[in-house]
């Protein structure tokens, strides 16, 4: 799933408000991430890859839909890097483009469990669609 539109490193930094240069490469974000095993690129890699400018690789990775926004990495990062904000910014870089919603309203009914709280649907729509 290559991106159809280039999003620059500068845009990602501006959307996220994150400064990846604050990272000291300790790995606390990836140590604390509950979704680690589901991800192709892990939180610390988001930081390093954004710093290096490898935005396209990240945009093409399903990892961006695996973050639970639990903010554990934000809370525990000793240098206040806030990796989850980079994951969010990359995801927005993708879904803000036309026809790039990860989840379409039409997909929802098939996923619906009768007990599922509205909160889950609303949150997922917020995270996955424009």
């Amino acid at each position, binding site marked *: 799933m290559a991106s159809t539109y280039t999003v620059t490193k500068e845009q990602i930094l501006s959307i996220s408000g994150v400064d990846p240069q604050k990272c*000291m490469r*300790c790995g606390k974000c*990836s*140590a*604390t991430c509950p979704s680690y095993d589901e991800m192709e690129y892990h939180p610390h890699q988001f930081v390093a890859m954004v710093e290096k400018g490898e935005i396209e690789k990240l945009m093409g990775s399903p990892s961006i839909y695996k973050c639970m926004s639990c903010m554990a990495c934000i809370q525990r990062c*000793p240098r*206040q890097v806030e990796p989850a904000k980079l994951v969010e910014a990359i995801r927005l870089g993708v879904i803000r483009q036309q026809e790039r919603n990860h989840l379409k309203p039409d997909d929802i009914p098939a996923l619906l469990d009768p007990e599922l709280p509205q909160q889950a649907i609303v949150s997922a729509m917020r995270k996955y669609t424009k």
Partner: protein
Amino acid sequence: MQKIGVFVCWCGSNIAATVDVKAVAEAARKVPGVVFSADYQYMCSEAGQGLIKDAIKEHGLTGVVVCSCSPRMHEATFRKAVQAVGLNPYMLEVANIREQCSWVHKDMATATEKAIALMQAAVAKVTLNTPLTAGTTPVTKRALVIGGGIAGMQTALDIADAGYEVDIVEAKPTIGGKMAQLDKTFPTLDCSSCIVTPKMVEVGQHEKIHIYSYSEVTQIKGFVGNFNVTIKRKARYVDEAKCTGCGACTEKCPSRKAPNEFNMGLNNRTAVYIPFAQAVPKVATIDPEYCIKLTKGKCGACAKICEAGAINYEAKDEYIEVEYGAIVAATGFEMIDVSPYDEYAYTQSPDVVTSLEYERLMNAAGPTGGHLLRPSDGKEPKTIVFIQCVGSRESCSSGEMRGKPYCSKVCCMYTAKHAMLTKDHYPDTDIYVFYIDVRTPGKNFDEFYRRAVEQYGVHYIKGAVGKVTPEGGKLKVQASDLILNEQLHIDADMVVLAGAIEPNKSARPLATMLTASMDTNDFFTEAHPKLRPVESPTAGVFLSGMCQGPKDIPETVAQAGAAASKVIGLLAKDHLVGNPCVAHSDEWMCNGCSQCETVCPYGAITYEEKEFRMPDRTTKVRRVAQVNPAVCQGCGACTVTCPSGAMDLNGFSNAEIMAEVDALCR
């Protein structure tokens, strides 16, 4: 009216080749106030100095300008020369026509013109100079060392060996500090107490050293050479002079639930206690919080058993005042409280311990007698995870910071030590060390760490621990391995936290009493980070050990010796000759605003209520600034800060500098 003489040096050809020295001397004669001028090949030579001396005598000169090399070279030489014939040494100015003229310009006309301007500026300044006399103050030949750990002990010993009296004030009942609690020391693995307890004995027996244990400094007055210090001797309810340290009272004491500080609270002690077998002074102390007699009025078991009659339940805190010439801060460090890092479950499981607790668990004199047994069930741990940088190297950009922004320096090494010692005794143990960077600068340090990896098979993992979950008697450790790019899950039996080092809590109030500056982390600041590393900017205050910044034992001992040598250098003087170029305040102009007091880095300025006789013959009490010339270093920060222009600096007064400005702009 000043009578000024101008002396122009050729410096061989160094000046004369580029500057027309005769023209400078000639020009000098035209400057108002100049009554004599001359040029000579080498002004700094005997003959040159003789020329100046003769001219002073002959022409009754009141001020002298020497146009020569930089004042940093020969100002002192010429000052001495003029003083020899009765002129105040501060009535001399040097015009720098070598380094800042002849050596940097090539064209003779230009260089000569500039030399003349520099000469004129110097004449303008010396015209306004006033004779200055450096004050002298006597020195009390006794030093105070605050803190009785390895830093304080070494400083005290070195000062005492030089023949000066030293007092150590130690807050705890015994000296010895943190080093007495350590098991082994890196990188040699020699037994810590085997090397520190003889030092403690030496300190205790030294005829020049007096130990005030279980005491605190509560007030410091005075300044370099003349400090007046109030020491609070906390009531220990045991007469130090009578107690023989036999320990009978500690055996009889029925209150046995007080946490044992020496063992990091891993076991309990009695209410009357001697911290450990080799304590100095070896006398008992009663913990008033746990003593049944002191809390409930009943008991008295210790008094009954004590043959020496040393127990005194009526004891009160005592305050004594002592005079000192120098003060050394050696207040040491603590480990931060690691409980805010509860993702490591320190508050949730007794098997998660700090490094210092681990140190006690391995120590033969510790709560487990040197057998490494985990606190929860007393079993030998098979898998141990060490976590580095707990609270060190944290960002200080937000107010939410849990830890410290600096590297605590010793953790990498002592963790390698812990790992190796554990493997030595229990080779089957699986040991994981999670690190951000392994920092081992130091002699034989990296070799030491590599030995842990290569010979002992300690698993060093570049990564962090995210969560420790105590469950079913195990500690489930979730961590990252950044090299393998994996998340690890380890079932550990113990987790050891290398918590950050922080200055002892008593350091901040002490710094306030000393008016010694501190950084934002509460480490004492040096007078100069490179050139004066063991002195505080506050004159007469010296720094020893961890209170200045994280350091290991050899560095601490080296710094302790350095601080001692500075103290000896000070105490060796009968009088301190001050720098007369100090600030002074015009009391009539001072409006009492305290701004100078705030900017002074030395605490040289204080405020006093003073009575003034007003023009209308009434008297008025006003609050005015006072500069202590023995403490002022003459930077001039206060002079510019003063909004009413009351503060001025001797030797660099507003009028003198402005006269130079005027002369150079002419």
